[in-house]
């Protein structure tokens, strides 16, 4: 039948209703089945895509379920107002404040390093560097982002803290400053690559307009490109903050794992993530209050990153510029 196609007459007679009815058999009829196959494939692919939703539901479900058990033992007020977290001791206090303080201190130290350095790197790569430099530096930054966090933990404990002790002799071997700085170095690539992408997306004619008015490169970069790319730069910062809050191993290795309600980065401390690691290493029985507590603080961690992401979403909407 297929051979017919090549021998079609130049003028194709249009089949009328009668001719259609008289046509022997629809030669595509045997392919009806393929619609069933197509549908089956679409269902399978949809199920795979929907697994992302299932994972989210599972995460929220498990965190809420175990946290509910935790809060049936521990009043929410104690959890929020007590300033001690001594769940591993005989006299138990369930105040999340020390863990929150630890998380905020290391995150802040990290951001104080990563945001300026990451932003300047991004501006330099996008507005000043030649194509060659960019081609070499970007992969190196990517490699920096690919190094396992446990190795960064070793770096913080064995190299960074001793180096800091050279300048600050009274700094203890476990402190939050060293890990905080290392977290900062870890998130520089995230901040710089997202911010750079945002700046490079700014149309060239805007830069040309600025140069035509006699502005220098730096003036163009700071007064034209950066304002135009603000929404993307904010997104880069938010990504950095999420990474810093959720970073685990660096702090678990080098900050001392002692919940400590302080805002001084030179002291040892524990973050939410470090506490989860500490409990998990102890191999606690399923269903104990300590077991439930890691889900409760995990819920706090998720709420923190979620609210930052939400903030970022709103900020992106607020600063969005369309060209």
């Amino acid at each position, binding site marked *: 039948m297929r051979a017919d196609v090549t021998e079609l007459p130049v003028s194709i007679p249009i089949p009328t209703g009668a001719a259609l009815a008289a046509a022997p058999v629809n030669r595509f009829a045997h392919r009806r089945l393929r619609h069933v196959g*197509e549908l089956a494939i*679409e269902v*399978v*692919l*949809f199920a*795979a*895509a929907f*697994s*992302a939703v299932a*994972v*989210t539901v599972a*995460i929220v479900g498990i*965190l809420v*379920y*175990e946290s509910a058990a935790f809060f049936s033992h521990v009043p929410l007020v104690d959890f929020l107002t007590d300033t001690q977290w001594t769940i591993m001791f005989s006299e138990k206090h369930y105040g999340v404040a020390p863990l929150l303080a630890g998380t905020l201190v290391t995150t802040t130290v990290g951001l104080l390093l990563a945001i300026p350095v*990451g932003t*300047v*790197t991004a501006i*330099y*790569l996008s507005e*000043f560097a030649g194509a060659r430099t960019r081609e070499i*530096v970007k*992969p*190196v*930054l*990517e*490699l*920096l982002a*690919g*190094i*396992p*966090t*446990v*190795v960064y933990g*070793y*770096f913080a*404990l064995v*190299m960074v803290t001793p180096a800091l002790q050279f300048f600050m002799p009274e700094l203890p071997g476990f402190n939050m400053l060293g890990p905080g700085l290392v977290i900062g*170095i870890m998130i*520089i690539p995230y901040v*710089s690559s997202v911010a750079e992408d945002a700046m490079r997306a700014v149309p060239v004619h805007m830069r040309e307009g600025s140069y035509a008015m006699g502005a*220098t*490169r*730096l003036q163009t*970069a700071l007064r034209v490109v950066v304002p135009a790319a603000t929404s993307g730069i904010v997104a880069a910062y938010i990504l950095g903050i999420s990474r810093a*809050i*959720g970073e*685990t*191993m660096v702090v*678990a*290795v080098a900050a001392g794992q002692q919940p400590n309600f302080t805002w001084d980065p030179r002291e040892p401390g524990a973050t939410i993530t470090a506490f*989860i*690691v500490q409990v*998990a290493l102890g*191999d606690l029985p399923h269903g104990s209050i300590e077991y439930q507590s*890691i889900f409760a603080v*995990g819920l706090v961690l*998720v709420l923190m*990153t*979620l609210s930052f992401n939400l903030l970022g979403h709103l900020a992106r909407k607020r600063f969005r510029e369309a060209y």
Partner: protein
Amino acid sequence: MTTETARIRRLVARGKRFDKVFVILGLMSLMVGVLTLAVLLAGLVHDGAARLDWDFFTRFPSRRAGNAGILSAIVGSTLVMLITALTAIPLGVAAGVYLEEYARRNWLTEIIEINVNNLAGVPSIIYGLLALGLFVYALDFGQSILSAGLTLALLILPVIIVATREAIRAIPSSIREGACALGATRWQMVRDHIIPYSTGGILTGVIIGLARAIGETAPIITIGALTFIAFLPDPPLGAEFPFVSFEWLKSPFTVMPIQMFNWMSRPQAAFQVNAAAAGVVLVVMTLVMNGAAIWLRMRYRKRIKW
């Protein structure tokens, strides 16, 4: 008039000076990252070189630092990566294909997209908590290779989905239209054109995802991997009927980053040397994988001309 020209000249000179200052500042910021990488690698090699010999790769962990090796950790990492790859690649590619080629613009698609983006931002240790509650206890897989592999698969799923979508988006629509014009069904179009042409991009994403998974420590600690494993899991192929065994899926295990973390948290200096040596092996593994991904991406970018 001359004073006015001089004023403008001064202004221009000042602007150019600021440009130069910023270039120096930019190079210094670049160096923060690049130098860190160099110092980190040099320090690790310096600390760990003494232990990096053949014995280190062929021995089990030991109470005596000088006798300890990473055999069980390397085997554990390999098996966990196997499960991760077998789960995450089909799931991630299928999800990416659905979102790019099948999904209609409606609220359901939007929910899925929001979820994929959010999952990419969830801290890795939260996946560990999910795995502890779901895989270890609810599904009763125990603290096993299977639980760890599935956990890391969920962790890198967003990476693979996003990479697949980007690779597919780069294919011009003329390819799709050409296939459809010749009577291909949607699946035939996807199978014969979309997937083959996006393989390079997908592979890049898969390698980056696996490189991340192999270095992940926190979620594996959370599900309770042991650190002292002086045996290997049951081999998957046996000499007796039925020849294939899946016992290894349920086996307790350790992986490279956990082994390193364990050595690091011991007080004795000799174990710190082991930690550094394990760190060198781990960093080389991830650098090689990430380097391969970068190389692959450049190669495909150069080669494809639509």
